[in-house]
């Protein structure tokens, strides 16, 4: 399947826009996007949908997904017209990538332009804390990606000297050159076993941006 930087100059580019804060509208003129399976809520014009086994990443991506247990099934929407995507009334956040990598929880990836490459990367930390598996979805290339978050995502900058600590359940995505460490909240050891709270935190250091949502997924650290 043709994809990547070489043909993005030839193909018409899908236009991503927000219709309200919870619906993504993509205007297409014969090109295609990859979206979370079943996230189409409406479309006008001519549109075809195809389920992509293994996320359209070829054998390697498919094997990775099998291994990781990441359950995001992806479909390809292709056609002429406008296609509307939404996921359980979550907020849609548009991210423009210019060659860098976006790491995102698989649950939070709604739609990507065909020019973007998605794969699975081993990350360990957050997956371990949030029960999402040990792998995170990595989106690379140049183009638009749409993330969902429960409540609008807040973008927090991490620089040298100002590390950021995040509740694993509130973490959505990050870009940049960041390293992550799982920390237990200082002084919290006495509380583990009583239902957790902020018992586990992820510390981001380096340079980059972290997307957090004003909500917390259930984590097995406890009722948060």
């Amino acid at each position: 399947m043709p994809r990547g930087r070489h043909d993005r100059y030839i193909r018409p580019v899908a236009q991503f826009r927000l219709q309200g804060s919870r619906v993504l509208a993509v205007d297409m003129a014969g090109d295609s996007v990859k979206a979370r399976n079943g996230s189409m809520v409406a479309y006008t014009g001519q549109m075809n949908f195809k389920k992509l086994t293994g996320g359209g990443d070829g054998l390697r991506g498919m094997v990775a997904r099998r291994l990781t247990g990441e359950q995001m099934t992806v479909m390809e929407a292709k056609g002429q017209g406008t296609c509307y995507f939404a996921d359980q009334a979550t907020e849609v956040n548009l991210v423009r990538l210019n060659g860098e990598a976006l790491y995102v929880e698989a649950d939070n990836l709604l739609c990507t332009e065909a020019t973007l490459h998605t794969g699975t990367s081993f990350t360990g930390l957050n997956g371990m804390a949030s029960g999402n598996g040990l792998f995170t979805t990595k989106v690379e290339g140049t183009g638009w990606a749409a993330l969902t978050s429960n409540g609008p995502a807040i973008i927090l900058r991490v620089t040298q000297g100002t590390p950021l600590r995040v509740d694993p359940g509130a973490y959505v995505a990050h870009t940049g050159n960041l390293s992550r460490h799982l920390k237990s909240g200082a002084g919290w050891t006495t509380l583990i076993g009583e239902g957790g709270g902020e018992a586990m935190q992820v510390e981001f250091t380096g340079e980059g941006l972290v997307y957090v949502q004003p909500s917390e997924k259930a984590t097995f650290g406890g009722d948060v």
Partner: protein
Amino acid sequence: MPFTRINGKMVEAAVFPGQQLFSQRGAMIAYTGDVTFKPNLMGGQGGVMSMIGRRVANEDTPLMTVEGRGSVLFGHGGHHVHLIDLAGDTLYVEADRLLAFEGSLQQSTMFMGAQGGVMGIVRGQVTGQGLFTTKLTGHGSVAVMAHGGVIELPIAQGQPVHVDPQAYVAHRGDVRNKLSTALGWRDMIGRGSGEAFQLELSGQGTVYVQASEEKL
């Protein structure tokens, strides 16, 4: 119009003597003044048979009659509320999405057969639920609930709109609809119910779509 939008999830309704309102049971948040809430023994305006029909059809959304003088706040289940004004035209909406509407509107419970059936067909074929939907006609306002708010998509001649049945909220105007299984969608059977179906709405009018595949 008696409804005032307070915020995305709450509307205020002014109640005057002689002007009935109907609302979903349990949708009252607060009220001032002398207002009474009576369960609608007659099942709206459709009579007893209509009510029994609803029960049989499992489209059992009891309505309250709201009367008196005062002001009432409505909201329900944390859902977003969308106000729709009708000026002589017809709104088709699932009964359980109705938050409140003016008594000036003619309400009927429609059997959704092969013709014009939206949720009827979908429910019957896909989810096995009832075959009834609510039709409101006349002049007045309707407050409709949706998960995550709604977007309005215009339907014009030659420009049909395809909607995920789970995200469909309501439609108005001179609209024909049919349930289709689009080529390619068969691939998706087996992952989530109803995903293989689309509603095709054509004609002249508006369809209201919610930002979620979650049914109310």
